[in-house]
């Protein structure tokens, strides 16, 4: 019974597995036979167990809700895509040689019709009285900028008729025959199916070929629903989500900007903004397909009718848009509030301001100022030290709405966040952009100072010196007129 030394070292090797219940019965019994007579092994085990039981007080935290829904949506779409409706579709056509040909022809006609339908502005859009005050120049510009962007998601709306056909593969011809000639009257099948499951994947197949059509459609459809919607909220929401899936005017930027800012911002950032948004952006951007696809699906189930028939479809869409709107806003708000205390290392005052702003943005009446909401999300990111993330949000914002009244503020903040994120090159370029676009802005001096610092850091001392000289000149010039506080955002 008394433990010989070799026995001890063997037992000691087994102790960890013993403690975690990973030994088979024979070896477990071996350990249990050894322990009573061996204080040293007992002690070793007791230490392990003591530490373990202490560490058991570590709380398991609940996983965040954010991202869950879009993940599940994405998973569903991916599953559908894997089960390639495209293949089924081709199979259907092949199985019905004559009917298939006819169907294909009819579909072609339908597409043609749809295209015409959409390219021409829908009549309601022009006639319907709008409860909304005329769009501000900024908003108009924004629409003009965003409407024509061909986005894959718009294509999701395209194939409603064909989906209906596909879903009812057992009787393809009648439904095709009834649907195509009058796209203005949506196929009853398309209407009744609450959420045609094959839709997105199907349209994805058509995406390449039809991107031009999708772009055109998106423009027409967007303006249609945004002008005919019965309530201002719904109309802003519908119009925005409809138009570009990034909801330039809708709920998404607030909610998603907080949850996954990049899903909203990173994409549009590519063409115009110099921000590579290195560390956080790629991770977050992953969400974009999911989120966009999810929206696309919703939009898609109604969109084609939205412009032409103002009866059922717009109403349904509106309800959906509003409920989502509030739900997501609520979520964003909670999130902002949750992070605010964490970010309040510096005095609470600066943290409180954007928070109030985000709250304000959640009130429907001010819902249109998503620029402010997204800006405050970026500020929240910045306070959390997520500089690359903040930069990516800001880059998107600046690229999308370069003429927004607060664009200068966003641009300078972008430069600062890029600098903090270590993106010196991009930050210096952003400073230059700022100085080009807003030479008379009171913050020009700050931009010059930052640019000088960055150039210095990049080893471009000569340029840095020139910029510093410029800054001194500017400071001297502006010393006489009203001095301006650093970051007063214009109203």
């Amino acid at each position: 019974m008394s433990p010989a030394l070799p026995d001890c070292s063997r037992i000691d090797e087994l102790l960890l597995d013993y403690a975690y219940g990973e030994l088979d019965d024979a070896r477990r019994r071996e350990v249990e036979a050894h322990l009573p007579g061996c204080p040293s092994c007992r002690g070793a085990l007791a230490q392990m167990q003591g530490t373990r039981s202490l560490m058991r007080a570590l709380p398991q935290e609940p996983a965040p809700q954010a991202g869950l829904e879009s993940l599940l949506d994405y998973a569903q779409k991916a599953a559908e895509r894997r089960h390639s409706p495209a293949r089924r579709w081709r199979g259907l056509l092949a199985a019905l040689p004559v009917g298939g040909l006819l169907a294909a022809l009819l579909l072609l006609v339908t597409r043609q019709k749809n295209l015409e339908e959409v390219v021409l502005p829908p009549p309601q859009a022009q006639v319907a009285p709008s409860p909304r005050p005329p769009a501000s120049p900024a908003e108009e510009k924004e629409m003009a900028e965003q409407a024509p962007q061909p986005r894959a998601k718009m294509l999701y709306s395209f194939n409603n008729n064909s989906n209906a056909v596909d879903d009812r593969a057992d009787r393809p011809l009648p439904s095709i025959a009834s649907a195509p000639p009058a796209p203005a009257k949506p196929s009853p099948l398309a209407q009744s199916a609450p959420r045609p499951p094959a839709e997105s994947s199907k349209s994805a197949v058509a995406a390449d070929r039809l991107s031009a059509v999708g772009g055109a459609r998106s423009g027409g459809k967007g303006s249609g629903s945004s002008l005919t919607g019965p309530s201002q909220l719904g109309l802003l929401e519908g119009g925005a989500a409809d138009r570009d899936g990034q909801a330039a005017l809708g709920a998404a930027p607030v909610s998603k900007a907080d949850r996954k800012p990049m899903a909203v911002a990173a994409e549009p950032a590519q063409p115009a903004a110099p921000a590579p948004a290195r560390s956080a952006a790629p991770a977050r951007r992953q969400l974009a397909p999911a989120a966009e696809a999810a929206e696309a699906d919703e939009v898609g189930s109604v969109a084609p009718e939205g412009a032409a028939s103002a009866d059922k479809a717009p109403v349904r869409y509106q309800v959906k848009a509003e409920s989502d709107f509030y739900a997501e806003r609520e979520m964003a708000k909670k999130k902002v509030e949750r992070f605010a205390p964490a970010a309040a290392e510096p005095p609470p005052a600066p943290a409180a301001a954007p928070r109030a702003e985000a709250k304000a943005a959640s009130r429907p009446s001010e819902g249109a100022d998503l620029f402010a909401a997204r800006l405050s999300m970026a500020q929240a990111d910045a306070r959390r030290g997520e500089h690359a993330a903040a930069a990516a949000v800001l880059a998107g914002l600046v690229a999308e709405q370069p003429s927004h009244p607060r664009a200068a503020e966003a641009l300078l903040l972008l430069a600062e966040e890029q600098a903090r994120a270590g993106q010196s090159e991009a930050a210096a370029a952003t400073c230059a952009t700022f100085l080009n676009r807003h030479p008379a802005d009171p913050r020009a001096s700050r931009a010059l100072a930052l640019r000088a610092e960055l150039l210095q850091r990049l080893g471009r001392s000569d340029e840095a010196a020139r910029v510093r000289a410029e800054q001194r000149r500017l400071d001297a010039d502006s010393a006489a007129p009203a001095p301006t506080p650093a970051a007063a955002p214009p109203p």
Partner: protein
Amino acid sequence: MSESFTDEKLMLAYKAGDARAFEQLVLRHRGSVFNFLLRMTGQRQRAEDLLQETWLKVVRSAGSWEPKAKFTTWVFTIARNLTTDSMRRESYRKAESLDASDKDGDERSLGERMASPDAAPDRQAHAAAVRPSLERALAALPAEQREVFLLRECHGVAFKEIAEVTGVPENTVKSRMRYALEGLRKQLAAMGIEGDMAEDGAATVAR
């Protein structure tokens, strides 16, 4: 989708097109993966990002998934690799950062950050008081010990599977685990927290 299905069956069902099966998997394991990520990164936002990335990767890889290993082993492998990449990028970014004093914006210790202020009021005041110290002790472990500890202690992953997750031999895993336990014990002792404070401490044997 019945609860009695194994993870692997669910994954096969999802692979075959059943989105509900995936939902079930998410329900089962998302929280666990999140906690792993949270304690590996020490940053909530990053953990959330990595969580999403992990599951998106599960979705994307579902088509080629084969039930060769346990589902949880696979998921933790994905999460762990993403974390490693992210930490590598992060250290690079920090080295590059213009303003070194700016740090990460959050200068509280990991323990303070982790002790979430909105957690439900805990009846065991002692546990609540000790918790930040536990987080701190855990955060002080080298990453390769911490991951082993978390996987084994908090997520019930067997040593053999941890070896698969981390890509090192099982013996290495076990010695890291012993170092981890020893390191934690010393850390906690230094903070005045001893193993025998736990009511069920020395005598219990986990099964």
